[in-house]
């Protein structure tokens, strides 16, 4: 097995009103990729293609060394998948689901499953239809984690969870991250969750990957620079400016190629640098998407 867990090359999928366009993505073994996009951006379609549940029109997909969708059954033996739109059988109990999944996966870890039952405060004999949304998500996560998959694919798992349940789910995911051989793809439009657990970030918008890099590099590159510009001063052309906000006298520049030299350059031209602010992942995502949409309207 090479060091790449997931590889998508030039993957496209056309629907009547949506195009997943030429997606290329590598996910090294042991990495945690935060997959961020607005609703309808193509996250779930990409993930379904990864799982072999949707066949791409063109391009190739390799997951854990298996070509998808042709070898999906072999690949899915080592994948744990939890999706926001996945439901368990309401008429059956959690214990039944655990037995069912355990009968399929030879690597099922019952003691870990029991630990998760206690940690998530679940009752195995309770029917799924009697569980709250948070408990159902935790039950689905339990079923995915206890099979000890090499690849964990989480499609919006924290959507709709209350703060307590969200924290419990994220805490368990953080614990899972301790296994450095496990690869995780975490899709969400909640950037706070993604920022907490990911080491790589991919932004997807309108069916295209618009950014894919290490989280720290991404956070380092993006800055918001607040300036005071006197009437006599003229700002120089600064690199990587994606957005200019504020007013003419008090501009706020958003750059995706921040360099400390920019500060002295502005000062040399008579401007005062009020602050250079780091940006949250959400701010970076929104600025990135908006600037690209301005350049390429739908």
């Amino acid at each position: 097995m090479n060091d790449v867990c997931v590889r998508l090359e030039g993957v496209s999928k056309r629907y009547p009103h949506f195009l997943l366009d030429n997606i290329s993505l590598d996910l090294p073994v042991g990495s945690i990729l935060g997959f961020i996009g607005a609703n309808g951006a193509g996250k779930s379609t990409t993930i379904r293609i990864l799982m072999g549940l949707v066949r791409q029109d063109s391009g190739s997909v390799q997951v854990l060394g298996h070509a998808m969708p042709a070898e999906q059954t072999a690949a899915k033996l080592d994948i744990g998948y939890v999706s926001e739109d996945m439901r368990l059988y309401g008429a059956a109990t959690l214990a039944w689901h655990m037995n069912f999944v355990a009968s399929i996966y030879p690597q099922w870890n019952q003691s870990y499953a029991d630990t998760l039952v206690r940690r998530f405060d679940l009752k195995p004999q309770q029917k799924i239809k009697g569980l709250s949304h948070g408990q159902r998500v935790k039950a689905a996560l339990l079923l995915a984690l206890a099979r000890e998959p090499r690849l964990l694919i989480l499609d919006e798992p924290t959507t709709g969870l209350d703060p307590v349940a969200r924290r419990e789910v994220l805490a368990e995911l953080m614990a899972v991250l301790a296994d450095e051989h496990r690869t995780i793809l975490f899709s969400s439009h909640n950037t706070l969750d993604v920022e907490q657990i990911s080491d790589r970030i991919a932004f997807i918008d309108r069916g295209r990957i618009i950014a894919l890099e290490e989280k720290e590099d991404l956070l380092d590159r993006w800055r918001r620079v607040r300036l005071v510009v006197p009437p006599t001063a003229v700002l120089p052309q600064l690199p990587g400016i994606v957005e200019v906000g504020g007013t003419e006298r008090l501009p706020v520049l958003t750059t995706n190629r921040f360099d400390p030299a920019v500060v002295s350059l502005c000062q040399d031209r008579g401007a005062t640098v009020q602050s250079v602010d780091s940006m949250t992942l959400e701010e970076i995502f929104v600025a990135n998407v908006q600037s690209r949409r301005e350049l390429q309207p739908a």
Partner: protein
Amino acid sequence: MNSSPTNYAMVRRLILKDWYLNRWMIIGSVPAGLASLAIILTGKQVAFLISIILLCMVIIGVGAQLAMATTINERKEQTLAFIMSLPVSWREYTAAKILANLIIFLIPWLAITAGALGILLLPGATHGLIPFTAIMAVEMLVTTCLIIAAGVITESQAWLTVAILCSSLGLNVLGYVFAHTHGISPQMWGTSVHWTATACTILLAEFLAAALVLAFTFFVQSRKTDFL
């Protein structure tokens, strides 16, 4: 969409899963069917007709409800994503759905059909009705195969409803046609059984039709590109 060999153990697990989730409906249908049969024992021709109608309702109802629960609800209630996240291919999923529906349906179908034929074999019963009853019982099996096919292929409640309506209508029309077919009609109300060439041909055609419908289901499923 999958090049791996069929995992029969997985197919068996999926069938058992559908049995477990629908067991009470099936178990409940057997006494309902047998109660309908008991009406025949009154010995009147009207009672026979009422009994046949009730039996058709029970058998078709079970087949339709089963297809609804195992295919349409799987998508509607979003449990399909859970099943397809497991190491399951389209081939295993389709095989499991068809076999689960057929096997589970066969439990009440066999019990009720055997009961109906058993009653007709009683001394003094109208033995001539046996071929017609067998033809109609197999016709209900074909009808159920059609309903299963519609459920598996379309996963749509609207299309399944259309299939149920068409099947019910077809069953009545074919029942009428068979009852007035030259090779069946003259012997129907006699005291001895006549397996005429016409009756045997119809039975054979029905089994062939059921096999073709199921093969067509596999063919269509194999051409699907999206499973969620």
